[in-house]
């Protein structure tokens, strides 16, 4: 009797310690990335300026007057996030590769998926920070209120999917000969579902569409996020294996 109870107690304890070490490893990778970025601000400033430039280009390319603005705002936003996102993804992996940090990370005695999740979270953080600056700028420039809870939720879900797949593909593309030009080519065709449903859900929220119209793309976004992060989690070992 006594033996059994101690056994039962000891299993969850062990598991908990394993879990907490995994989370600690993820946190360490995120913390490393954020701290390096706050010191250099290379990636963040490049992404931010780049996304403002894209909005500027769209302004001239589409002549964003009041009428067109209503229909294309979500499209312009997501195109901006997608382009700025590749810049960040490329850079965050290229830094690791160039300075030989990736080998150091791989030598660390932690589960390799911890590196993947750490990278996803830091990439996601950069994307979200840039998005949080682009949104008010866009709101001021075109006098639309983009700070709606629904829209923010869509942006969060879309960015999760984008960063999840993007981190996996960036880890592959930096190890090839054509590294910088390859990432968008690999990434864009496979994130089309994210962009499509995110644009549809965002414009639904912006134009005050019925809930039934919005819930379908929203569900699709959630499904995509779950499927692809699970897939990346399973195959990431194969991408960084030496």
């Amino acid at each position, binding site marked *: 009797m006594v033996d059994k109870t101690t056994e039962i107690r000891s299993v969850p304890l062990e598991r908990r310690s394993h879990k907490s070490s995994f989370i600690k490893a993820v946190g360490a990778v995120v913390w490393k990335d954020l701290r390096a970025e706050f010191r250099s601000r290379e990636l963040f400033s490049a992404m931010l300026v780049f996304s403002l430039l894209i909005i500027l280009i769209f302004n001239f390319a589409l002549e964003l007057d009041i009428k067109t603005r209503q229909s294309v705002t979500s499209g312009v936003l997501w195109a901006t996030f997608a382009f700025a996102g590749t810049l960040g993804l490329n850079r965050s992996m290229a830094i690791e590769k160039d300075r030989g940090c990736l080998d150091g990370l791989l030598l660390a005695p932690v589960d390799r998926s911890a590196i993947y999740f750490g990278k996803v979270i830091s990439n996601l953080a950069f994307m979200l920070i840039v998005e949080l600056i682009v949104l008010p700028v866009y709101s001021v420039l075109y006098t639309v209120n983009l700070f709606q809870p629904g829209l923010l939720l869509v942006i969060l879900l879309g960015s999760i999917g984008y960063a999840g797949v993007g981190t*996996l593909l960036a880890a592959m593309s930096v190890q090839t000969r*054509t590294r910088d030009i390859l990432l968008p080519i*690999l990434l864009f065709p496979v994130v*089309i579902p994210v962009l499509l449903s995110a644009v549809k859900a965002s414009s639904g929220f912006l134009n005050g569409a019925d809930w039934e119209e919005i819930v379908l793309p929203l569900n699709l976004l959630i499904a995509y996020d779950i499927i*692809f992060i699970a*897939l990346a989690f399973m195959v990431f070992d194969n991408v960084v294996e030496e």
Partner: protein
Amino acid sequence: MQTKPLALRILDILAIVLLGISAYLALNAPTERVMGEVQKVFYFHIGTAWTALLGFILAGVFSVIYLITKDLKWDRFQVAAIEVSLVFFLITIVLGSIWARPAWNTWWTWDPRLTTAAVTELIYVAYFMLRQGIDDPDRRARFGAVYALVGGLSAPITFFAIRLFRTIHPVVIGGTNPEADGGFSMTPDMRSAFFFALFAFSIIFIDLFWNRIRLGDLQEKVEQLKLKVSM
């Protein structure tokens, strides 16, 4: 020098003969009343589409097997399946476009099936660009398998995502779409031509697939011989 296995040579000839018979049946099938002659494109359109999709699904299965076993044989299978399917799918798109010009009055429209087809083509072109950038065969195989999985999973999701919009693509087999444009029902003669085309293209696909695997094996052998000579 390894000679071609006899079974493969027979299959080569069979594939050519079947293609001829299939073309003959398609041309002799009754002409569709509304669309006329251009409807005959349909037999080869479905034939290539079906085999290309089969090839992409097979490639997904091969990449899972490769990632588990790490045997380069499965990588060669996967490349063969994707390469043949890529060409077949391109033929499907071109034939569909030829049909769409008179039927829909446009070469191209952003319908779910057409868009998904274009995106799928691009995914597998990107797949080959990825492979081209990597020299180490093991790494090339691993990355290829991972990307084939990601792409293979994303293509059907793209299809469902675009389904949120309306479709005008006709559904000839199983089910009707009231908004479709250019749908029709088949007579028995058309049906036999249609199923024969499916069969013929399946055999042609298997033949090309086999030839491509053999080519991959020979390439591998050449690489090894080159390595031996340089050492």
